[in-house]
């Protein structure tokens, strides 16, 4: 009797332990690079290059000082934020009505057009954009950069929101229609408020993808509007490869993205998986 209980206990314990090990096998490779970057960002150049590697030894803020004082990263933060926020807001303004219409009236051609915009290789737009914006003397202005980033945000908004609107029950809208309320009122006063979770998803993703974008800034921005990814890249390409400072810069740029993800975790997961699941 005791023996079987013990066996049972042991087996459930070992099963749990096995599961724990498996989960660890997933987590370590995922998380390790981050911890390692974080650790390196507090190390001196000498400690980073020492072999065998030593962890958690030096505690210097020197790298961060260089990034923020000498390289003026706050300026790039500001640039990235202006571009990300503006592009996201405009994407919402353009994308929400479009998504609603696509969802309600099954406008599959429009949906496909937006899908193509989502899947287009950005590189095929760079060249004409560059020519267009340079004719208009808009290179290195926020306008060009924001316009280009809307093309990142808009498909995300339409893509996630058209699926979301489809899941909103029709009954509420129909009863309002019977009462003679116009459709645009219904959209603003009824549909949008109950779609807040979807909007949060779209907003977060649109901002994240704009924040991380490198290719568009690479061609459309220069000194005045340089965004963070470009600044980090330039930091490496120039002169001494100062690994500590580069790691500090990398940590600085991914931290806002990570914080945003932590706050809106549920929404981000939904947004990223919505494409693959049935609408």
């Amino acid at each position, binding site marked *: 009797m005791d023996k079987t209980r013990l066996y049972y206990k042991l087996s459930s314990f070992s099963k749990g332990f096995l599961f724990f090990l498996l989960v660890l096998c997933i987590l370590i490779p995922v998380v390790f690079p981050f911890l*390692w970057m974080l650790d390196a960002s507090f190390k001196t150049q000498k400690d980073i290059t020492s*072999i065998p590697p030593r962890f958690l030894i030096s505690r210097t803020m020197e790298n961060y000082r260089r990034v923020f004082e000498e390289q003026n990263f706050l300026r790039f933060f500001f640039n990235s934020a202006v571009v990300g926020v503006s592009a996201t807001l405009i994407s919402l303004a353009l994308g929400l009505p479009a998504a609603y219409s696509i969802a309600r009236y099954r406008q599959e051609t429009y949906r496909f057009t937006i899908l193509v915009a989502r899947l287009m290789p950005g590189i095929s737009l760079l060249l004409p954009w560059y020519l267009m914006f340079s004719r208009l003397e808009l290179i290195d202005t926020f306008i060009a950069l924001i316009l280009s980033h809307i093309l990142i945000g808009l498909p995300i908004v339409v893509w996630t929101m058209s699926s979301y609107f489809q899941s909103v029950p029709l009954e509420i809208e129909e009863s309002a229609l019977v009462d003679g309320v116009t459709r645009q009122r219904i959209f603003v006063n009824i549909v949008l408020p109950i779609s807040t979770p979807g909007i949060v998803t779209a907003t977060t993703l649109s901002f994240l993808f704009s924040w991380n974008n490198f290719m568009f800034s690479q*061609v459309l921005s220069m000194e005045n509007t340089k965004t963070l*990814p470009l600044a980090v890249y330039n930091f490496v390409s120039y002169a001494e490869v100062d690994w500590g400072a580069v790691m500090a810069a990398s940590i600085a740029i991914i931290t806002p993205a*990570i914080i945003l*993800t932590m706050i809106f975790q549920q929404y981000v997961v939904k947004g*990223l*998986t919505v494409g693959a699941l049935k609408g």
Partner: protein
Amino acid sequence: MLDSRFVDRHIRILFPLPALLFIAIMMVFPILYTFSLSFTTWNLASGMPPRFVGLNTYIEVLKEPRFWAAMGRTFYFTFLAVGCETILGMIWALILNREFFGKEGIKLLLLLPLVSTPVAIGIAWVLFYEPTIGLANWALKSLGLMPLKWIADQNTVIPSLVLVDIWQWTPMMTLIFLAGLASLSPEPYESARVDGANGWQIFWHITVPMVVPIILTGIVLRSIDAFKTYDIIYTMTNGGPGFASETLNIYAYNLSFNYFRFGHAAVVLFFLFLIVLSFSFLVNRLKDRGHG
């Protein structure tokens, strides 16, 4: 402002209109422009305007070994990356597909590689792969294995880049599969268990058929993104050593912004676009099936 009744009546045109106009100006027009450039030879640096040459530029590009090498490499990169990510993602999803304490926390951690700025990630991996001071070779050496040159060797550069891609995107596959598994209806499982099917049979005969559409869509979407990978490759190798990691994207970038041969770049972009467009049709078909 527009008359509200007018808006009400034409809402199905007016609502999508601004977005579609924007797409037309920022995407359709540029694509058409690029397409028209592909029939010209235009070297920006020559200071001369584009010259119409019919299909000549196409022929020149198709005869260029660098183009075909880049094409092959792009597919190689995509298949290797997406293949590994699919298999790994499925295994991870099966492991995590149960309720346990801390599941949400793990999901959060899985998100981190996805939302991190690719440029920053690429740079971190460059240091990781650094042959003399990098951690990768130190790990190999301490395991008694031969150190590798990673992204500094023409033979290992693509697999090394793929490894970064796997690290970054396997979590995405895992999350998609997890969401897919969670959406499965429980009935078939119950009846199977009543029939006395074992775990493997249940997985193979019930789970797999039900999740196949999800897996397929996930694979196609991921393939398109892998096909377009730019940031990571550009920051880590810029197509080197030699041209060993030059994908179509990087080749097109070099043609346009380093050699300024816009006509030739347009041809490469045309092919790139064609491939992506056919992928898009595939997604749309899969979606349609999902809706039906």
